[in-house]
């Protein structure tokens, strides 16, 4: 495993502090006082809701009900497709684009300012805008297709797969800049000398990417993908505002399907059970993240 750190700071690192390190008197008091706010937040606003949620979803009959509900399976499948495709496309594109933004040109620096904009814009307005761009044959996208290329664009929200693609496009648009910035910072931390040395040895751009960038960014890439996976599983907003689950609720993901159970069918326990059904996957992701963050040094 490559431990990735800024080399010039390595010398400043000490061996990991020991558990028993002497914190005494007022110092210990301060340390505890500093941690208490977060622990209070964690207990009152994370542990308690979690325990409550597990209790709400404890009845096995709920899972039997879910298993018999085709809407549940459809939402689960959509969630897996959405996360599997959109997260990976976004991460890969962000990794490649971060290389583009490494180029030292004035106009590329200016372009970066524009490129970050989607991340800074709030989600609801952006997704509403996407909704109106796709929603009808007179939306901006189909109008552009007609005027520029003479193509009669599709009815985006009439097909399950096209609607899902619309959701994914909107999602990638919104979140790709954040990860591009993170990969850009990761690339900047790679010492230029590594590339120079490899170039002297006759390495081409592809070699540089494969032999230097990829191995050195691997941990950052994996950790980012895992975090992004977690966030995306609980993304309610994009599906709700872009396709609104349409056509005929065929693009609902677990997050939106859960709200249908809770609000439209007034079955909050079923809603919690639907969400808990994906927790085994989440535990695997979180466990991997814990391990990675313990061993790798990355700048998030």
């Amino acid at each position: 495993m490559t431990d990735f750190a800024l080399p010039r700071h390595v010398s400043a690192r000490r061996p990991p502090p020991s558990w028993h390190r002497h914190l005494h008197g007022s110092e210990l008091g301060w340390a505890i006082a500093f941690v208490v706010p977060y622990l209070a937040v964690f207990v009152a606003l994370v542990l308690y809701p979690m325990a409550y949620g597990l209790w709400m979803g404890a009845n096995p009959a709920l899972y039997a009900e879910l298993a018999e509900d085709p809407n549940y399976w459809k939402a689960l499948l959509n969630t897996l497709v959405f996360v599997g495709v959109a997260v990976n496309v976004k991460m890969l594109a962000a990794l490649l684009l971060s290389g583009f933004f490494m180029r030292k040109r004035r106009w590329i620096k200016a372009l970066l300012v524009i490129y970050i904009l989607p991340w800074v814009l709030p989600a609801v307005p952006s997704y509403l805008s996407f909704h109106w761009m796709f929603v009808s044959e007179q939306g901006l996208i189909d109008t552009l297709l007609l005027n520029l290329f003479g193509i009669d664009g599709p009815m985006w929200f009439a097909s399950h797969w096209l609607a899902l693609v619309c959701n994914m496009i909107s999602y990638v648009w919104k979140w790709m800049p954040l990860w591009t910035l993170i990969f850009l910072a990761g690339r900047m931390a790679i010492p230029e000398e590594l590339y120079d040395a490899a170039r002297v040895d006759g390495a081409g751009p592809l070699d540089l990417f494969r032999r230097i960038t990829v191995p050195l960014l691997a941990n950052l890439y994996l950790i980012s993908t895992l975090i992004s996976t977690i966030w995306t599983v609980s993304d309610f907003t994009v599906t709700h505002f872009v396709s609104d689950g349409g056509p005929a609720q065929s693009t609902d993901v677990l997050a939106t399907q859960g709200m249908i159970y809770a609000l439209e069918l007034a079955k909050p326990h079923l809603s919690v059970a639907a969400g808990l059904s994906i927790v085994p996957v989440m535990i695997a992701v979180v466990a991997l993240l814990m391990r990675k963050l313990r061993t790798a040094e990355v700048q998030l």
Partner: protein
Amino acid sequence: MSVLALPGRSGRRARRPNYRLRKVLIEAGSILLGIVVAVWSLIPVYNMLFIAFNPDGYDEFSGLLWPEHATLDAFIGLWNGGVDDVEFFWQQLGYSTYIGLAVMVLTVLVGSLASFAVSRLRLTREWMLNDIALLTYVIPSSTLVIPFYRIMHQYGLMENPWSVITAEVAFATPYAILVLQQAGKLIPIELDEAARIDGASVWQVYVKIYVPLMAPALAAIGTYALLFAWNDYLYQYLFLAAGEHTTVAVGLEQIFDDDDSPYNYMMAMSVVYSIPPVVIFYALRRYMASGLTRGGVKG
């Protein structure tokens, strides 16, 4: 490259035109990519403005690419109020701002204090705090909202902005802690020790050494927390009352749901709602950029 295989020629001379061609191609390619990136980033923004500047909000359905009679009507109407569904816009913007700033300040404060205690005062090993933070992610937040809803009733915070603030702080702090823990490794602990020997209290070390040196990471985390609150819809929708006492995100949904509502107003609201985070982000970007490229201080 095949030229290299040709015997009897100076490799340098043979490679030169090829090299130049490659340079031109790379330049052309990067300009093309730049155009694609710019169009990709700006189209939804353009669409937002396009609808907002429509006279009646229905031009987007008439196959036009730009408004034929661009007007500021929607913005003026928003300013004056009195239009159905948007009459509470300014109160809602106040709510959004209040929630956003509170989440920003509390996340930075709670996250940095905990991270300071663990990684600088070495209260426990660093991975313990990371792991506790990551536990938050085990159940999707879109699921936790249901038990949260009941708990907020118990806490008596329903329809109170603090229900949203506390929940959002709980979900924004884990990532803040992860980032701060990693960024803190770049600041030599000797600085703290030297200050302590000189008689500084723990609080002074936090305020005078940790906070200034961590400013880039703290600015990044603050932006992240603000955007987190600004992006949220689900918690605000479920925890807050309708109408006057809710946020813009929920107000937008109310217009979205109402088929009779003028969409130019909805988009004008969207544009105004987008301005605060954009301004704050570009104001704080200077700090973050210096943090990203400098990576803390030199040891």
